[in-house]
């Protein structure tokens, strides 16, 4: 099979349009996300107690659950449900033993709904100290990982490539984050920002950097082969030459993830969804963000140098 023939698509002429469109949608998306109540942080990052229960016969509504829970003294409980009938996430601020609170809640729910069977799916209790540490450690390790990627790419290619890669990675993660936050609001999947979601974002980073390196590698090779060719043309040629690989890899990975989104069950679905979004965005950003930024940055540096030289001569 050979789906993608030799192509000669013009990717670079409209690069600024795409770049600006991405930039604007990322910024707008982030602003929307940071409106109050949009981002739902998981228990890992907020601290507190969270209990997940499932009603076998799905006979209880969210309001009834709330009433039952507040009747045993957890008035401020937050009740969420995710597409699956009879499954509720109960979040309370009270700290205390997860196992004890969850046992109380399950017992109380069972009493309120004697005809149904209440199953405890899970309970977490995270001290605020632990959640802050987790956030801090994650941020630090991510920042250093990004720095290492920048340095390695800069070392193997050029500094401009390193910057381009990191800009594109930031774009990918932020876009995937925006879409996940918005999609989480639909209530179809639980996409709150938890430590597991963090692993999905790390996967996006890893996949995306892989994609960028492949394109950069081709540009590096073509730079030797076609000496004197302007960078924009080099980039366009390389993007066309790697297009077949980009799409074949992308499609096979996306197909695999799609299976997990639909059939993966509780454990995998949310996770696979975020990765799916991220890989689509990562593939797009190799073409339109990393390459556009590379051309723009290289031009800017060149012009600046010319300007400096000119001014010293004047």
């Amino acid at each position, binding site marked *: *099979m*050979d789906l993608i023939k030799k192509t000669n698509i013009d990717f670079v002429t409209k690069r600024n349009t795409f770049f600006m469109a991405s930039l604007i949608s990322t910024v707008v998306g982030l602003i929307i996300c940071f409106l109050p109540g949009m981002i739902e942080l998981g228990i890992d990052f907020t601290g507190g107690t969270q209990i*997940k229960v499932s009603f076998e016969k799905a006979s209880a509504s969210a309001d009834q659950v709330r009433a039952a829970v507040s009747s045993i003294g957890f008035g401020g409980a937050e009740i969420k449900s995710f597409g699956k009938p009879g499954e509720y996430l109960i979040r309370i601020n009270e700290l205390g*033993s*997860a*196992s*004890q609170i969850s*046992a109380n809640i399950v017992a109380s729910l069972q009493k309120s709904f004697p005809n149904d069977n209440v199953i*405890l*799916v*899970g*309970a*977490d*209790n*995270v001290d*605020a*100290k*632990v959640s802050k*540490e987790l956030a*801090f*450690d994650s941020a630090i*390790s*991510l920042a250093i*990982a990004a720095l*290492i*990627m920048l340095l*390695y790419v800069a070392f*193997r290619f050029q500094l401009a490539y390193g910057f381009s890669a990191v800009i594109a990675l930031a774009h990918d993660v932020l876009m995937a984050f925006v879409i996940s936050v918005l999609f989480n609001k639909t209530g179809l999947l639980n996409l709150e920002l938890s*430590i*597991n979601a*963090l*692993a999905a974002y790390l*996967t996006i980073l*890893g*996949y995306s*950097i*892989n994609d960028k*390196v*492949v394109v950069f590698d081709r540009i*590096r*090779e073509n730079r030797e082969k076609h000496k004197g060719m302007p960078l924009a043309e080099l980039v366009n040629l390389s993007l066309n*030459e*790697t297009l*077949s*690989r980009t799409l*074949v*890899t992308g499609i*096979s*990975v996306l*197909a*695999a*993830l799609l299976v*997990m989104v639909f*059939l*993966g*069950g*509780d*454990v*995998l679905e949310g996770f696979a969804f975020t*990765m799916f979004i991220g890989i689509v965005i990562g593939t797009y950003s190799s073409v339109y963000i990393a390459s556009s930024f590379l051309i723009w940055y290289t031009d800017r540096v060149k012009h600046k140098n010319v300007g400096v030289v000119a001014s010293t001569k004047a």
Partner: protein
Amino acid sequence: MWPTYSYYQLNQEREALAKDSAAIEQWDLANGEQFLKARSGRLKLGLDLRGGMYVTLEVDVLKLIEESADPLSVDDDLTKIIENTRKETDNSNQDVLETFLKNFRASGKSLLQYFTVSNQSDPTEASIEEKLQRDADGAVQQALEVIKQRVNKYDLSEVNIQQQGARRIVIELPDVKDEKEIRSLLQTTARLEFKRVVMNRELIRAFYAIDNLLKGVNPDTTVADTASVAADSSSAKKDTSSIAKADSVKADSAKRDTSGKAKNPYAGLSDDEAARRIKRDYPLTHMLGGYYAQSEKGSYQPFDLILKKADDFPEQGMYRFIISGKTLPQLLKILDRADVKRVIPADLDIIVAAKPEGTPSKDGTPEVYDIYGVTREPELTGDVVTEAFPSFDQASNQPVVLMEMSSEGAERWAQITGANINKRIAIVLDGRVYSAPVVQNKIPNGSSQITGSGSPEEANLLAVVLKAGALKAPVKIIEERVVGPSLGEDSIRRGVSSSLMSFALIILFMLAYYAWGGAIADVALLMNVLLVVAGLAGFGGTLTLPGIAGLILSTAMAVDANILIFERIREELAAGKTLKVAVEQGFSKAWSAIIDSNLTNILATIPLLVWGSGPVKGFAVILLIGAIITLFTAVVVTRAMFALIVASGATTINIGQKRTA
């Protein structure tokens, strides 16, 4: 990988027999060792994938400081410093003790005002700081030790207890049945006691009393001696392979011992049958091994408890009882029963050593634990201990533990030691004996030296234990996660089956798109996933949800490596090169992209491994293993297969490329 597969095979076999305890016993005899070996070597699933309970405990260092200060000296200033430190450290990663000391110094006060070091007549600031540091470190060890011993009592398989950082303990308990019990186990403080050791005939009498009780509550006795095979098998319900094995040995020895006597009820029975009956008739004592010496100087001779009664034994002399580490959990369970406690004399307590006797042997001989009879009422409770630390005896150069007591405690200690010269006093923490030294002489001032620690580590542990009397390690639960077993069943099955389907989809896609090339890639991919999972199992790693993310990424990169190679070979073939040249060029040109992308990811895992927290680390470990193996499979495996094809003289290969007319 093999242990994982073999574990699931064996487990299935074993579970198929679950209803029939006699069959399980038989099966365990035949396969038990193999089963346990496979179980320890297999790939472990994280609690997020299989259900269980996860608890992080932290030693409250500030509470420890507060408690170790001289209670009369505590004033508002110290309370305020502690409170400020708590506020400051609650939201940060700073070391609590360091922050406290910093704040304390800023207040311009002297540590000497609040703290003393009991074995020093004129402590300095530095020596107090050192003491606080030692207390804080010891507290973690103490809590760790107590929890380990307590968890041992439950027959929980694969409990994982680890120290994390300087002040934390992580406990992972899969298959938790009673969460409340576990919580109380983690939170009750341990109790240190000094008890007099009573090893005499009364202890043996108590053993037989327990035997009778256990037999009595067993419905099987209604059929008594004419016990049918069915009744026999049900009496053996709880037994594990090791017990069965130990028994058959016992049965042999019992037969030997009693072969001369006409009344041996087990004579003429098959080994298995004899073992079963002995176990039925002596539910407790069949697990024990006894030793007897006439006097302190005499050597201990082994004896058997089977087919005897307490009056058969001499009243005078020294007894010693041991139990195999394998049957220890059973004994602990028996001793914990309320009805068993009732048949033990009111002034006697039967307890077990915390550590196995001697150094663990490497030849697979099971570890043995000493069983002690002690007075039920402690001679002295541990709160009189003010300080304990490991040291070396100048004269013998042996590791020793030095212990100090409060003046009130020292007075009582002098009486106790005076009255028990040449007798043994057991040091009991939380119902387990850590040491049972013989009193050499009367100790007048509370300063005791405990010899007999086999190694500096042992001495260190004993010091930690003794300090539990002076300072109970205050621990709090800072993280607790319970994953219900319902997630374990359905969700995991869906997760696994969808992952397998995804993988199959990729395999088929590669085959369809790259034809023979795809077949080669599929072999490499299969190897890749197997090696990654095997690598994880081999390092004793645990597969968690973030780990699956890492596996997805590393598989995607392995797929990509193959695609990069094939696309290049296609390009070269399209340019009219011969197969041999195209393959060579294809590999060499794809190589730089493959190595750069994998190396970027490998390097990026380093900070995740160093600074990332648990789940992030789990992701990074798999990605690291995966990326390294991808480099191997894509380059070595795929390449070798192509090289074989080229070497076989083929001039064309169908890797799904456009046919040139």
